[in-house]
């Protein structure tokens, strides 16, 4: 029983992390029709920044670090979008290729700066004592992480559905030409959404640090999980990213615990089933 509950919680926390990663990916894809393959690298950059910041400065806690790293990564993303991606507006394939090139540059830069050994990110001290709930012991940090992911999901939902910015984003997703015609600054919207998406990825990297720790190849481990989540949930759908993240979180965690060798194959199966019956994903729209 203890095994199932602990693994269940681990699944939830991985799902939460995956949601933080894939929601940004999905937002960017939905608006810009751009598969941002740099997303895993931005996540990893966040983790490395956290590893350094939390060791070098005593006053920092993980939450302020997450916000700070989020802004740093968002700024980097915004720069990349303005300087490179806008030049390739009419060339979606070219855009994907430069995001891939950028991911190589970032991950190699991380290897150059931080070296090849894995660097642990400390768990916040006030969350190190486990929580007792219904007679079971839970790692507190993971519980908080799940709550945080839900909080971000709700905020993103309100941002998209209830604010002026969200209305403009939805208009841009539905009909870019028409949105432009009625005076929505679609190009600026692109930059905002790209910054938002990459910023969340950077912050997610920080928050994932205590669980995953920073190591070279973290980006290559996380990107396929994010891809599978959005393929499963439907590209561009926030709800799809949410459901897909927790499905993949469960499958991956239990797969690794029960059949360690086959975890990667088990990861395949939901994706294959969904693609076979609903190629647009669980919550994706046809033609999206």
């Amino acid at each position, binding site marked *: 029983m203890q095994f199932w509950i602990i693994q269940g919680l681990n699944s939830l926390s991985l799902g939460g992390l995956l949601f933080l990663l894939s929601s940004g990916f999905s937002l960017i*894809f939905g608006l810009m*029709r*751009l*598969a941002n*393959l740099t997303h895993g690298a931005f996540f990893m950059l966040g983790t490395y920044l956290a590893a350094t910041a939390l060791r070098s400065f005593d006053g920092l806690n993980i939450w302020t670090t997450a916000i700070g790293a989020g802004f740093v990564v968002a700024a980097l993303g915004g720069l990349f979008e303005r300087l*490179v991606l806008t*030049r*390739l507006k009419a*060339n*979606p*394939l*070219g855009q*994907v*290729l*430069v995001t*891939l*090139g*950028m*991911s*190589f*540059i970032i*991950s*190699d*830069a991380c*290897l*150059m700066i931080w070296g090849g050994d894995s660097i642990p990110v400390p768990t916040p001290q006030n969350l190190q004592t486990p929580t007792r709930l219904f007679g079971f012991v839970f790692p507190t940090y993971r519980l908080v992480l799940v709550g945080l992911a839900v909080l971000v999901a709700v905020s993103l939902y309100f941002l998209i559905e209830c604010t002026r910015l969200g209305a403009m984003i939805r208009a841009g997703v539905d009909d870019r030409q028409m949105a432009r015609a009625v005076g929505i600054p679609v190009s600026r919207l692109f930059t905002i959404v790209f910054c938002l998406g990459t910023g969340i990825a950077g912050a997610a990297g920080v928050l994932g640090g205590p669980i995953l720790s920073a190591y070279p190849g973290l980006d*290559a*481990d996380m*990107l*396929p999980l994010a*891809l*599978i989540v*959005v*393929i499963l949930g439907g*590209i561009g759908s926030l709800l799809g990213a949410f459901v897909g993240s927790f499905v993949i979180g469960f499958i991956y965690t239990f797969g690794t615990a029960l059949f*360690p*060798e086959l*975890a*990667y*194959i088990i*990861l*395949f199966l939901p*994706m*294959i089933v969904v*693609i*076979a019956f609903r*190629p647009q994903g669980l919550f994706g729209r046809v033609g999206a």
Partner: protein
Amino acid sequence: MKWIAAVLIGGSLLLPPFFAGDFYINLASQILIAAIFALSLNLLVGFGGMTSLGHASYLGVAAYISALLTSRYGFDHGAAALISILGTTAMAAFFGVIALRASGLGFLMITLALSQVLWGLAYRMSNVTNGDNGITGLTRPAPFGFSLESPVAFYWFVLIVSTIAFLMMTTFVTSAFGSSLKGVRDQPRRMAALGFNPWLIRWITFVYAGLWGAVAGLLYVYYHKYIHPSSLSTTSSAEALLGVIAGGSGTLGGPAVGAALVLLLKNYASAYIERWNMLLGLVFLFIVLVMPAGIVPGFSRLMAGLRGENR
């Protein structure tokens, strides 16, 4: 003009064994292998309009199957090669069914996800694949009793295989089927209206590209006598894709030139700096931003301009 160029290039491929040292002959073998691989990817990217970021799957899986069968299960090279090519092609047939449910960026993401899963498997299933250590101590085959151990002998072997590969792939795209493939790339709806089956045409191309990817993988493992999960990585797929795009996707010889350039760059750069991935990323940015049509089309436009032709 085209024929003269083809004869010149073909002729120059015969020369290395007669005057070049072992280092350059080995380099030439590697270039030919990379060229087959890039040409097979070009069937998808250039002629089919299907940009795959998972082509290293076929190279890596074919190499792993051959390596495992010969080193661990005592198969002889002929049987291992056959099983490896058939097995990899079957995998391509299966992956094609999955990936071709989507098109465009969806296709790209599915191929990338599938290849990343294989890469993860190669790393994690260490009791089968030996994980990060890779499989060492492999041998080269000796077809009809000819040993391929010397660089020159191996070069001739690779040259023969790559000539066959080049001719077969050229025939594929210049045939009537190739025309229908280009039709499906440019106007899928009109082709469907004309009674063609776009899905089937794409799928056959996908499987055929997987087959030649597997051949490249066999040559790759014969050359290195060693296989490591990194041959399945995104970097490996991306190098081939860069070769295709740099050389000019959708041209017959361009990707081979592009692959040669990428390989030379990798060899020379790694003699001076360790940061190959970063350089690869920078070259990607450069090519996409500055030479989106590729080097070969760019060069031929230049030549046409010099001869005073208007284009």
